[in-house]
């Protein structure tokens, strides 16, 4: 058993695994066919190698700094591994004035052991404001949301430096935001239905506020949002928020007819009327679930602390200095002679 442990603790195995890790990092990060998750293989080998070294190598255990560094690394790899297993990554666009609906979330990654509480998350989207400098340089983003249990709702303003954490899920604002057209579909002989159409991200696509939409009746429409006054001001500082100026919607039907309506106006379509209610903002959030990350920070700090301690143990200040200025000056004289 001890012999196997010693073999597993081999320093040469460490070097081989590090080399493989290096190659897989390079391949995985660049390749479209090989995922970077393949680095888990050499990382698992390195973890076992390290654990075996801690158990089998007395010299290793006597060097406090080195031991702390490696234990910190082991903890870090373990925490990252667990985080991958329970993680969740996704994104969602939420309309100003509307409630977050988990069904709208586009999931990008979910771990095998993810507990899955997203459907319990509730919040209501409030105002959205994004500051810009001249040249369309984005500054701070402020998004107000209301969340909490019914009767104990609290208002929170989140932004670039402050995410909202609800049920362990973090909602992080993104640069992706724009305008949404709030509409009411009034079908003939039935109750009206409210809905919203999100236009492309603003101000990135200021020049192209056009989107295609299929009406509940199945009719294909192309809608273009126009404002009476320019919203973005590339030549000076400005704030992106729900526009106050008048707007109009140019709607082109599939037969080539163009209809223009403003706020409160209605379009007569097949099967009913489409009434333009208002324009609101929408904002996109990144959603993630990594509850162990604070512990990863602790493990990483522990590892770096151990490394610094080992440096002090291995290269004490006086040893590094080697010799005094007088000794050096004397040597310099000998060299000149």
């Amino acid at each position, binding site marked *: 058993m001890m012999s196997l442990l010693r073999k597993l603790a081999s*320093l*040469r195995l*460490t*070097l081989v695994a*590090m*080399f493989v*890790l*290096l190659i897989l*990092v*390079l391949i*995985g*990060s*660049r390749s479209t066919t090989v995922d*970077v998750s393949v680095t888990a293989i050499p990382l698992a080998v390195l973890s076992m190698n390290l654990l075996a070294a801690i158990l089998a190598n007395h010299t290793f255990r006597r060097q406090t700094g080195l031991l702390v560094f490696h234990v910190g690394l082991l903890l870090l790899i373990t925490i990252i591994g667990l985080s991958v297993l329970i993680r969740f990554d996704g994104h969602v666009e939420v309309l100003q004035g509307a409630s977050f609906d988990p069904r709208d979330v586009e999931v990008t990654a979910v771990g095998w052991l993810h507990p899955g509480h997203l459907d319990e998350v509730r919040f209501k989207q409030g105002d959205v404001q994004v*500051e810009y*400098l001249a*040249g*369309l*340089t*984005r*500054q*701070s983003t402020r998004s107000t949301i209301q969340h909490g249990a019914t009767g104990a709702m609290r208002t929170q303003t989140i932004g*670039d*430096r402050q995410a909202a954490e609800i049920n362990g899920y973090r909602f*992080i*604002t*993104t*640069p992706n935001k724009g305008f949404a057209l709030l509409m009411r579909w009034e079908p003939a002989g039935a109750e009206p239905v409210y809905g919203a159409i999100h236009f492309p991200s603003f101000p990135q696509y200021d020049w192209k506020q056009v989107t295609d939409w299929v009406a509940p009746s199945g009719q294909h429409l192309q809608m273009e949002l126009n404002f009476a006054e320019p919203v973005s001001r590339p030549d000076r500082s400005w704030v992106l928020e729900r526009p106050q100026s008048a707007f109009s919607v140019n709607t082109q039907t599939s037969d080539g007819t163009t209809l223009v309506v403003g706020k409160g106006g209605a379009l007569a379509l097949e099967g009913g009327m489409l009434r333009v209610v208002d324009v609101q903002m929408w904002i996109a959030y*990144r959603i993630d679930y990594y509850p162990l*990350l604070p512990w990863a*920070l602790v493990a*990483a*700090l522990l*590892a*770096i602390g151990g*490394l*610094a301690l080992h*440096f002090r143990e*291995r*290269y004490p200040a006086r*040893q*590094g*200095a*080697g*010799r005094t*200025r007088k000794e*050096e000056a004397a*040597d*310099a004289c*000998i*060299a*000149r002679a």
Partner: protein
Amino acid sequence: MPVSPALEQQLVLFGIAMLAVMTIVQLPAFTARHRSFNLPAGLLSLVVLAFAAAIAVRWLRESQGPFLTLYDILLSNVFSLSAISLFMIWRRRHLQMTLLLSGPLLFLLGVWLVNVPAQAVPLPATFDNYWLWLHVVSGKIFLGVCLVSASTAGLLLLARGAPRSGLAASFTAQTEMRTAVWSNLFLAFVFHSLMLLAGSVWAHSAWGRYWSWDPLETWALVTWITLGGILHARATFKDMPDSLGYWLVVGVFALAFLSFFGVPFISIAAHKGLI
């Protein structure tokens, strides 16, 4: 109070001129035994002062630190590499000879600096926090200490290649220099680790993710693994030839240098600073 870009330019040009003079006055050391400590160190002090003043002037004018553009990165790195080299040779006088190799490199960085657009780009609000400072400062200390380690290794390689040269003869503390190669590389590893940690926390506030395998992150990790691998190899193979070790140290510095000055400016990844 608005500060003229001309003053910044003059300070930069003065600093580069001092780097050129420092490089030239050291050239005889390659062949002759006689060498002076005070003159190169004094010139390097002037370089540090000139670039510190240029950064201060730019900072006052733009109301932000030199963090974003290639010009910013070159300006701050010529300052930090010079300042760290000066600090190291002040602490360990035998390392003064490293300026023979690091001096020309700093001069070339200076020449590069005056050939890139100096126009500032506003720092996005999400970039500006304490983690940025920790990330940048630890990164600069890493590269500075790595430069001293690689220059020392380079000098030892040159001296081995020409044992009868004035350069080899003027080595008065080869044992200390050998120690300095590895102790400084180890110190560089500590600061590189701190740079990666602070960088990932900062990336979260800047872009909403800790790590996304963008080219700069990938190459920084590759440099870290290589650095760790070299230190590990030295501990594993006690009889590894000194010259192989020195070549590895020079190689890892080249890798770090390319990661700092090559990757961020040839990729179009998010690390370039999307707004």
